């Protein structure tokens, strides 16, 4: 993943692009998803992702203040929210962000995509900075190589949710079986069950509907979904 550089109002779009690129989600599908995000949710998510970026070490990220970009393209998600001047009619400055190390950025992008998809569901509206920070804090606990399967199945859950959202024009809330996640690049069999359990322990995924009377995380008919 090459260096990413963007204005703070573009954080959401840039990070979602980075995440989509990793997951193989097409640009047009991503566009369909972002088109559905309300201005209010886009503004909030963008701001929260910038706050997460600020927490990254200086070895991974550089930020500097700059005048806002000269043009405003109203059709772009990133500029729904920016005021060009302050109350003294001086130009507002904004952060220009350069991410050197891609790994944490993609992580933030993945979390951003989870939350972006969650905002499309009326029953799963996220609530503020604590959610984004909480999800990200749990996400970064995944370490390679021991959590490779968990990372892989997280990607698969995300890709599956994005696909369902694009195909049905509805957010995915019902969940999918572990076996189906193999089609989206996730591990299969016992490895999938262990990976999903790891995600559940970290509150990154949850069982939407149990395959039996409940409690058996390894049951093949469990329906899993991302937790936001």
């Amino acid at each position, binding site marked *: 993943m090459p*260096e990413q550089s963007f204005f703070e109002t573009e954080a959401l779009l840039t990070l979602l692009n980075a995440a989509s690129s990793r997951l193989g989600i097409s640009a047009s599908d991503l566009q369909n998803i972002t088109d559905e995000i309300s201005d209010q949710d886009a503004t909030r998510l963008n701001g929260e992702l910038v706050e997460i970026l600020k927490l990254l070490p200086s070895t991974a990220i550089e930020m*500097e203040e700059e005048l806002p970009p000269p043009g405003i*393209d109203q059709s772009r998600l990133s500029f729904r929210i920016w005021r060009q001047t302050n109350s003294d009619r001086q130009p507002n400055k904004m952060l220009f962000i350069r991410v050197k190390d891609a790994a944490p950025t993609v992580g933030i992008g993945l979390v951003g995509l989870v939350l972006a998809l969650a905002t499309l569901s009326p029953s799963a509206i996220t609530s503020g900075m604590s959610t984004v920070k909480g999800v990200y804090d749990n996400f970064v606990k995944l370490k390679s190589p021991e959590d490779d399967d968990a990372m892989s199945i997280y990607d698969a859950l995300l890709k599956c949710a994005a696909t369902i959202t694009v195909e049905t024009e509805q957010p995915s809330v019902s969940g999918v079986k572990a076996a189906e996640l193999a089609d989206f690049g996730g591990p299969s069999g016992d490895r999938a069950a262990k990976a999903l359990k790891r995600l559940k322990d970290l509150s990154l995924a949850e069982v939407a509907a149990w395959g039996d009377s409940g409690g058996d995380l390894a049951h093949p008919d469990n329906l899993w979904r991302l937790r936001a």
Partner: protein
Amino acid sequence: MSRARAFIGRIFAKIIRSAKAVPGKEPSAEPLRLNEIKWQRNSLGLSQRSGTVYGSYSHRYLSVSAVSMGEIESEQQLEELLAESQGASLLDLAMRHTVIFHEYRHFHDCFGTSAGIFSFLNYVQCLEAFLDVCRRLREEGVEFRFPFGEWIQQRDCPAYVKEFYRQLAFGTFYRLIFDGTCELPPQRGEDGESWRDFLIRFGPESIHIPAFPLTFGVQDPGEPEGLSPVVHWVPLGFNVLIEGNAQALQRRLLVSSFSEAADRELEIAQTLHVSHHPIDEKLDHLDITSNIVEPYRITDLLLSKYLRKYHEKLEKFPRRWITHLTDLALMASPMESFGEKSRSMPPGGRFVQMIELTKWPDSAEDSPQFPSGFSRDDLIAIRDSIRDCGGPEEITGQSVFSPVEYIARYVRQHIIAPILDLRIQYGNEIFSDFDLYLSKFSEFPTAPMVTIGAKTRASGDTPPEFFNWWTRFVMIGEVAEQIWSGRRIICCPRAYPTVEGIAGFDFAAEPGCETNLAAKICGTWDKKRTQALPDCYFGFLMKGLFGRSDTPRE
């Protein structure tokens, strides 16, 4: 070119000397607020009413845009249009159908008067001087440092860079006065003057600018009948003058193609200077009302107030009096070449000077004796001087200079000179007599870039290669503006479009700008960037100006 400017200066010095001058008022020295007025950013004239933008014109980029274009050829067609508009106001419909003439009038005033012609050529010279600085730095192996304004304060910054910056800073200041886009401090209460002369200082330099006291009523909810007056001093500059002309033309068309009622509706809409914001100590009403200052009727209001005050029998006067005075002023105020010390009076000063030099009659039925304009021989001399450059088709190079040179030659040969030919053929009245102007409208050169709705299109007689050069010219101009304004991060003008129509062009090889931008792999350039820009003109320009587009900093 400078020959033509000096020539114009001499002619007008002669005219002014021969006329009886009215004693000037003592100018007020006022601090200049160096932020441009909102409605005139970057010399883009917006035609708007009650928040609806109907069209715009960019002088630098030869670009006319309008929400729609149409001509009403019969009463039946008008009735059909009104029926189709389903409840839209008559004025809205009329504005949509006449706005293209408003914007085209800007194009003609901008390339058919000395003020507009030399303002454009000054801009081109400024761009060329900047490109020359960049070329010299590259040749000498000196790194361009950002932000520009901080670099020139450092000891090791080359003297020629500092000199360019000094010229740029003064040129920018002078342009604010020339265009009338500086902001003067508002005041509470009324002012009975037709205009006031302000003295604006910039370092050791100072320039006079007249301003019109536009009075607003601020409504007090506690006293529904009472309005507190607030005066906004609207600087008289190039923009207000050309807006006055375009507005006058549009109103003429409203009457001839629609109705007196549509014209009256527009006049009322633009005369209603009342702020309905509730009075609140936390709100600054001076600022609130400044947002509703419009440039369209300033010359009309100013002349009306002047005549009411000094020639009370001339309560009503023909519209051509204003357009005549405006044309005289615009022809008498050429901008100096870039880097040259300003000697001539800016357009606003010339406008009030022309008012004072005119011998006004006792009745509106009689004609005023206006100061003389350019003779046919004068115009021929200016036209020949403008034509004194090669043709644009001779430009074949691929350097960063080429687009600027091409556009300058194209404008001189195919826009300015043909418009001056019309002045020579039909007389200066072609710019002030709307009947004559409209009858010869089709003989004027067309604007090369026209955007109607969201669609940018070539005008019929523009050669296809023009657009390649134009897109690059716009790219260079917008990038230079960013550098001059002190940015560290340079934004690609295609990614962050500020110019009408530019988003429809592709500056990159396959897969093209849209795909690259959607993937967020481009859009900005700065010295620390390590990710290569795509194969595109923005990357080429950054490499051409600063020596590289994709190599990391040591």
